[in-house]
């Protein structure tokens, strides 16, 4: 046990496609390919513990179309982070370039979802559908890295912001340690678990 109650799962999409979908496919295009990739990711997550942080790496993906993004990003989030229910897995989409971001943003908007994406060589950002309060509270936590339970009233004096923080946790966009109730940015959780 790593102290967080979360199992880390790193997924390199290019290798996953080569190994488990079709070695001839160099790009993430078409819905059947996306569906196969999503099922392979779900298979890997099934062997993790009750709660997992999955880092899904797009660095080696050149072309991502909208149909594939719908399966690999939106449907995956809907499966593990169903609306109105507590999240069952956390995701960071790594190596997301501007060209990936366009289809990812489109499918997130279509399903009214948000996600954490890390551009190549850059800091994590919140993408998809987010309110002003979502963006403000998420950025505040991301910049601090962590927020202890006791610090919350001082750092987030506005009731709306405190409610938003709980909502971010429920939607898998921030992490709350089960034993202490402290909050972690997903990027911080990723560094703690994966180095």
């Amino acid at each position: 046990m790593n102290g967080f109650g979360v199992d880390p799962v790193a997924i390199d999409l290019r290798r996953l496609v080569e190994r488990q979908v079709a070695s001839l496919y160099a790009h993430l295009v078409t819905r059947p390919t996306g569906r196969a990739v999503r099922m392979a990711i779900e298979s890997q997550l099934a062997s993790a513990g009750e709660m997992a942080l999955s880092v899904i790496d797009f660095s080696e993906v050149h072309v991502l179309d909208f149909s594939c993004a719908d399966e690999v990003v939106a449907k995956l989030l809907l499966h593990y982070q169903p609306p109105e229910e507590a999240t069952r897995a956390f995701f960071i989409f790594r190596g997301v370039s501007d060209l990936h971001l366009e289809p990812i943003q489109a499918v997130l908007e279509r399903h009214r979802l948000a996600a954490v994406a890390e551009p190549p060589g850059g800091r994590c950002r919140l993408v998809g559908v987010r309110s002003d309060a979502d963006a403000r509270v998420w950025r505040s936590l991301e910049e601090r890295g962590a927020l202890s339970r006791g610090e919350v009233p001082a750092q987030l004096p506005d009731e709306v912001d405190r409610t938003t923080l709980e909502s971010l946790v429920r939607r898998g966009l921030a992490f709350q340690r089960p034993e202490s109730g402290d909050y972690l940015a997903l990027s911080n959780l990723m560094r703690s678990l994966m180095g």
Partner: protein
Amino acid sequence: MHVIRVPSSLDYSTVDSVFQQCAQVAEGKALFDAGYLRFVDPQGLVGLLSAGALLKRRLGQAPHLRLPRQTKVLGYLARIRFFEQARRFFSMQARRPREFAASSDVLLEITPVTTNSDVHAVVDRVQSRAGTILTRTLGYPLVTVVQFSVVLSEVCQNIIEHAEAPGWVAAQAYYWAKRRERWMLVIAVSDLGRGFRESLAAEHAGGYGKRWGDGTALEAAFLHGVTRFQDSGRGQGIQQIRRQVRRWDGLISIRSGTARIADVPDWDDTPALEQGLARFPGAQINIVLPAKERGKEKSRMTDPGPDS
């Protein structure tokens, strides 16, 4: 013998005349007379293939295709691999040329699309070829190659997922001397499936009542992203393609059944919605992307004819 006259300039704006003539043919033998063909674009070619396939299906025998007289037009048809597909639907004289060098401005030869793997193959091919045409010929930034591949992927998937029938895709850049004095890239997709009206009817016709038809089905899919699937993630392909084509100041049209719907840029005068056209049972998607700047006509080695 029914004679279908192929216009001397066969492109997206004239291919309907072929379908209109085909609509008059119910039985007997048919001849497609392309003897005077001097210019043809990808939309004209996949349209001609579709018309041949439809008549073969209707008449129970392959119509005859009289080949173009001009050698350079024949050469272009060989380069874009028209004959490989045409021999499935037409009988032809054995006058066609055998070997031609790869063409620099044929971005994608006429390629059948029936499976998921075909879409991957199209994207692979375009990724390796599109850079030069999109950047040097059309003046688009290099990142466009990926966006262009995404557009092609989505239009090809439309064949597989919605038509449930075989289709073709082709793309080529050429110089539009008469219309715009600049280079254009034309992407043509055609399938022989069931068309938008039938594809959407079970889920959506009831909501439209008596208004339901080819035009309303196209409006539903093209303007509102409606699909036959319950899945809310479906239907965004066409919407995203439209958005991208608009950014490039391009034209996109979809023709299905007796109607055509289009997003029309300032430089073209295609109507936004046409109805009462000759029936085409599948769907045709036409995309025309203009070069950023007017440019001089380049090498005509691969040009299909003098009338461009």
